[in-house]
C-alpha cells in the first residue's frame, strides 16, 4: 500500500468512521485524552472470555486521532485480548502506513493507549 493510498484510507475513516457510537451493555468504558492537544477518544466494549466481542468509539479531535480510533476498532473487534500483546506502538503505526511526525504519532496512538488502559481496568465499567 503506497503512502498516498494509506493516507486516503485514513481520511476515509475520518470522514466516515466505523463503529461510531456507544454500547449499552459495555463491560469496559474509558475516555482518553491527549494532554498535549486535547484530542479525545471514548471507547466502549464488551469483553467476554478474553475476547473483544464488540467495540465502539465516540471522539473529537484531529483527523489522525479519529481515523485511528475507527481503524483500531476495526482491527481489534473479535480479537482475543492476548493477541493485543503483539500490537506494539511501532507495529500499529507501521500498519497505518503513513509516516507521521512525532507529534502526530501521539494522536494516532491515543486510541490504542485507551484500549490498553480499558482492558487493564483503568476505565469505568459498566
Amino acid at each position, binding site marked *: 500500500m503506497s503512502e498516498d493510498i494509506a493516507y486516503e484510507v485514513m481520511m476515509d475513516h*475520518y*470522514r466516515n*468512521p466505523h463503529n*461510531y*457510537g*456507544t454500547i449499552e451493555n459495555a463491560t469496559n468504558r474509558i*475516555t482518553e485524552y491527549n494532554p*498535549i*492537544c*486535547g*484530542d*479525545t477518544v*471514548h471507547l466502549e466494549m464488551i469483553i467476554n472470555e478474553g475476547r473483544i466481542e464488540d467495540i465502539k468509539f*465516540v*471522539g*473529537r*479531535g*484531529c*483527523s*489522525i*486521532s*479519529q481515523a485511528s480510533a475507527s481503524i483500531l476498532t476495526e482491527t481489534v473487534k473479535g480479537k482475543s485480548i492476548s493477541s493485543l500483546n503483539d500490537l506494539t506502538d511501532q507495529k500499529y503505526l507501521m500498519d497505518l502506513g503513513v509516516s507521521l511526525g512525532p507529534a*502526530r504519532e501521539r*494522536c494516532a496512538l491515543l486510541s490504542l493507549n485507551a484500549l490498553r488502559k480499558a482492558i487493564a481496568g483503568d476505565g469505568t465499567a459498566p
Partner: protein
Amino acid sequence: MLNPTKVKNDFPIFRRKIDGKEIIYLDNAATTQKPKSVIDAIKDYYENFNSNVHRGIYKLSEEATDMYEKARKNVSDFIGGNDQNGLVFVRNATEALNLLASSIGQSLKRDDEVLLTLMEHHSNIVPWQFLMGKGVKIKYADLKEDGTLNMEDFTSKITQHTKVVSVTHVSNVLGTINDAKELARISHEKEATFILDGAQSVPHMPVDVKDIDCDYVAFSGHKMLGPMGIGGLYGKPDLLSKLPPYMGGGEMINTVTTEGSTWADIPLKFEAGTPNVADAIGLSAAVDYLKNIGMKEVRKHESEMILYAFQEEKYMENLKSFGPRSLHLRGGVYSFNIGDIPSFNIQRELEANSIRISRASMHPHDVASEIDKEGIAIRSGHHCAMPLMARLDVQATARASFYIYNSKEEIDKLFIGLQNATARFGH
C-alpha cells in the same frame, strides 16, 4: 517605521529553508527567534568571561559579576523598575509565578482567597491551586462575550478575603489586553497583592511597573528574543524584602549553621545556586535590541498585523476568530478555527450521531499540519489555557502569533495556506 523584512535579516534562523521553503514563523507567543546580537552575547560570554559570580576575587569573576549585575539593571530599567534590586532572575515566567505562589502562600490561611481570571495560562493557575490543600480558595473572574475581562464579575469576586489577585496582562489565546492599571487599583483598594503575568506583554508593548503600580510582574526571556532558561520576576523592593525565600542554597544566605540560617538581601535572597549568568547577559542583549527598535514601534507593528488579519480573514469561509476586535484592547495573538470545534461531550457527540466533521470543519491540528507543509509554523491545541477552552466551549484552537519579523506578506501566505489546506481537506 519598523520594516519586518529588514528585521528578519538580523535573525540567523531565517536563512534556513525547510524543504526548500522559507520559514514563516507564527508561533511567537510560544517562543521567539533570536537575533544575532543575542546569540553573540552568549558566545562572547563563554569565550571570554565565563566564571561564577559574586564570590570570586579574581578578574574573570569580577568581570562576570559586573556583566551580570549590569544585565539586571538593564532588564529592570526596561520594565520601568527604579531599583534593580527589585529584579530577580528566574528561569521563566512559570518559575516566577511558582515562587510568588509558594512564598506568598506561606502566609495565606484557610478561606483566604486568590482571584484569577478564566483567561489565565496554566502557569498562573496551577501554582495557586497548590494552595487549595490548606483551604485557600481560588476564584476565577469571567470573560465577556467579546473576549474581554468581565469587570463587573471581577469586582464582585474580589472581597475582603481576597489576599492575592493575579492576572495576565495579555491573553496568550485571545490577545486580550487587560487594564492592568485599573485592576491594580481595585486590588489595592481591597488591600490585595496585585500580580501581573507579563509573559505576553513585556515582549510586545511598553510596560511600566511604576505606572501600573503592580506589586509583582513575571516574564520570560525566551518570549522576547532572549535565550531560554532566563526570565524575570520584578517585585516592589519593600515587598520582596519581606517575602520569605523560595529555594535555599548558595548565594541566598547570610549565615548557615546547623541550627538554622539567615537570608541575604534582595535580589540574591531569591537566587539560590549558581545563576544563569550567560543567559541573563543574553536577555540583556535582547532588551537592547528591543529598545533600539522601540517598544511603541513593536506594539504598532503588531496592531497593524492584527488589523490586516481582520481584513483578510473575511475571505476565508467558515473561519471563526477569537478575541476582542478593538485594536487598543488587542495584542498580536490571532486564534481561530475552521468551523466549530466544540469541546468533547459524549452526549453531544452522540446526538450529532457521527463525528460530524462536516466538510466545513477542520480540526486545528489538521490545520497546523497542513500549513506546516508550506513552511508556516502556527500552534494548535489548548495553549496551556484549558479553563479558557472550557469557557469558550472549544476543544482547541489554531493560533498565529506575530512579532517584529512578521510581515503582511506572511499573513497573506497564511491565508492562502489555509485556503489550500481546506481545499485539500474538504473533499
